[in-house]
């Protein structure tokens, strides 16, 4: 059994104290413990805690069976006013004024529209300015706030941890549980700190930080723990950058990833449609400022990286832990411990069609995807556009730039970014998950190789037989222009 993280036993089914403006406790706690403890509805020895859910994000893929379950059992949705819905995974990124051509996709999207209508849940359909990737719209509406518990039937829900929220992905049975009860049963988790000290070299981005973390933690280093990203490099990131880092927490197996809220967080939130206003804003700020790991709190696991060592990264294999610096060459399986790791490396090289020793800068790419819940926000598009400006994509290169939401698209167009992309030969698309997981028409074909700003390089993730390399938006744009993996500095 995992050690119990918290030390103060509480009575069974203890009545929960009302939250005052700041968590009051004499016991040193980490950020995640503070947020967790503020959401305990019931705690019973030997049982998982029953946690209250402040926000439930719903999309078309993981919800239909949950709504069926609610209907079949004669239950109802307890808090439609704490639930928000959008369609993102299946939606096409062109011709969105026409019906969805794929009949099964169309039925899934229609099912969500019917379900949200029946249960009174706010829904943003394709074409609505507020529609977008579920993890992009929560923050931009101001629904994602520090100290909240946020869940969604999607493993990249960890994105919202960038605000100091406890946010994690759940399965469809748990989606049904949250719809019916607005709570979840959750066993205790360990705590994990991931500190990135110093500062990043010029040209390195939040995506490179999280890829470097994955190189350190591999795909399992976070299992059973909630990670807190800390240190000067993390504090210097914008909210977009922090979302990129937290987004990939699940890729090293963490339950969630969090960053303590600070003035950067508050400045992002102030004035957003659902952010607190007036006296509520002041009360919220006072509470939020207390959401920091206490100086004398300790973590069960600690990881330290030096910002100065983090140059642009790229994955070479078929899981996100198989990552190297872009300046490196394709590794040899012999560099890995004999057994599981070496076998996995050999299989990955074969699937990826790569030869050990080839410099990554010499690997040719035929598709570039800029988008996904990892990297489709305005800052990501600005970074890619800065590289694309005045340049032209390589001959034969297929490129997709897919904004994360209708609002991101509108902002990008107001700034003229779409013109920069189009002039450079990039394909400027409508918002959605798109080629991140290829549930819509945007897919890789057998053997095609992509530089992708998304989060998973699994076999077939972007289309059957497709080969995916994860990179930052700046590297993706530079690679589109060079035709082989490149950083912006490599371009003439």
């Amino acid at each position, binding site marked *: 059994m995992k050690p119990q993280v918290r030390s103060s036993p509480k009575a069974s089914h203890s009545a929960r104290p009302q939250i005052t403006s700041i968590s009051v406790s004499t016991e040193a706690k980490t950020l995640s413990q503070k947020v967790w403890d503020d959401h305990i509805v*019931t705690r019973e020895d030997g049982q998982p805690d029953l946690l209250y859910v402040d926000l439930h994000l719903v999309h078309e893929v993981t919800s239909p069976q949950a709504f069926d379950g609610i209907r079949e059992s004669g239950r109802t949705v307890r808090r439609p006013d704490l639930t928000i819905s959008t369609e993102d995974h299946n939606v096409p990124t062109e011709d969105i004024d026409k019906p969805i051509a794929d009949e099964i996709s169309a039925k899934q999207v229609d099912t969500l529209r019917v379900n949200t209508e029946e249960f009174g849940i706010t829904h943003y359909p394709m074409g609505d300015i507020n529609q977008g990737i579920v993890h992009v719209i929560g923050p931009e509406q101001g629904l994602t706030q520090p100290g909240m518990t946020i869940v969604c039937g999607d493993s990249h829900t960890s994105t919202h941890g960038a605000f100091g929220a406890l946010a994690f992905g759940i399965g469809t049975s748990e989606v049904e549980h949250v719809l019916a009860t607005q709570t979840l049963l959750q066993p205790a988790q360990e705590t994990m700190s991931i500190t990135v000290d110093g500062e990043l070299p010029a040209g390195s981005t939040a995506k490179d930080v999280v890829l470097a973390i994955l190189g350190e933690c591999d795909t399992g280093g976070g299992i059973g723990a909630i990670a807190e990203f800390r240190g000067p490099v993390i504090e210097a990131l914008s909210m977009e950058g922090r979302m990129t880092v937290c987004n990939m927490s699940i890729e090293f197996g963490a339950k969630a990833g969090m960053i303590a809220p600070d003035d950067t967080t508050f400045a992002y939130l102030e004035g957003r449609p659902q952010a607190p206003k007036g006296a509520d804003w002041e009360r919220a700020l006072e509470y939020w400022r207390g959401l920091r790991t206490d100086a004398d709190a300790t973590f069960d696991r600690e990881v330290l990286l030096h910002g100065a060592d983090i140059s642009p990264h790229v994955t070479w294999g078929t899981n996100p832990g198989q990552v190297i610096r872009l300046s490196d060459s394709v590794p040899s399986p012999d560099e890995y411990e004999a057994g599981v790791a070496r076998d996995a490396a050999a299989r990955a090289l074969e699937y990826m069609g790569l030869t050990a020793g080839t410099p990554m800068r010499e690997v040719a790419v035929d598709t570039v995807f800029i988008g996904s819940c990892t990297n489709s926000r305005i800052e990501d598009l600005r970074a890619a556009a800065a590289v694309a400006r005045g340049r032209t994509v390589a001959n034969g290169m297929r490129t997709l730039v897919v904004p994360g939401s209708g609002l991101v698209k509108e902002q990008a167009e107001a700034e003229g970014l779409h013109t920069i992309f189009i002039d450079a030969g990039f394909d400027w698309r409508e918002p959605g998950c798109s080629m991140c997981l290829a549930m819509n028409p945007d897919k890789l074909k057998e053997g095609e190789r992509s530089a992708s700003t998304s989060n998973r390089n699994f076999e077939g993730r972007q289309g059957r037989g497709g080969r995916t390399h994860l990179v930052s938006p700046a590297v993706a744009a530079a690679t589109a222009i060079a035709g082989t993996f490149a950083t912006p500095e490599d371009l003439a």
Partner: protein
Amino acid sequence: MEPVHIVQGTVVPLDRSDVDTDQIIPSDWLKRVERTGFDKGLFAEWRDDPTFVMNQDEYLGANILLGGPNFGTGSSREHAVWAIQQYGFAAVVSSRFGPIFRNNCTKNGLVAVQVSPEVSDQLMAAVQADPTLELTIDVERRTLEAPALGIEVDFELSDSVQHRFLHGLDDIGLTLQQGDSIDAFEAGRPTFRPTTR
């Protein structure tokens, strides 16, 4: 879910690490709005390969899936659990599971048995050598046994999950019995928390 006490049977040895849920059930299959019909999608891309282990006659009828480390990483899709169950597996054994997959197993009565890497390797070799080898997974005793190998190991299963497995309980029904506590919590929530209205 249906009660589960003992899973006994033969084993498919899937000797790969990091089998993510995209491999278990590719995303095209996630477009379905039903909870059934996922058996054909299980490992859909690998099953086209005639040499894939599940296509070997000697492993037909097995009801336990033995994977390499990091089984079920990645996406939260519960469809992965449904596909494994609907194909006919009642238990999955690995030295390490993706956390969301493992949790999803507990909601559907699929027994996820985590064993040490040494036991996993020993089982893998034994089942590859002898496809008729039987395992017994006992939910009540929290043990995995391979009598032919002299293996009997305990596995971790929390009391609450074990209780639901043995009695086939729906945890939504149990939580709804805590309605008063949920009401009390809601009454104390700060007013600055957002709504979606």
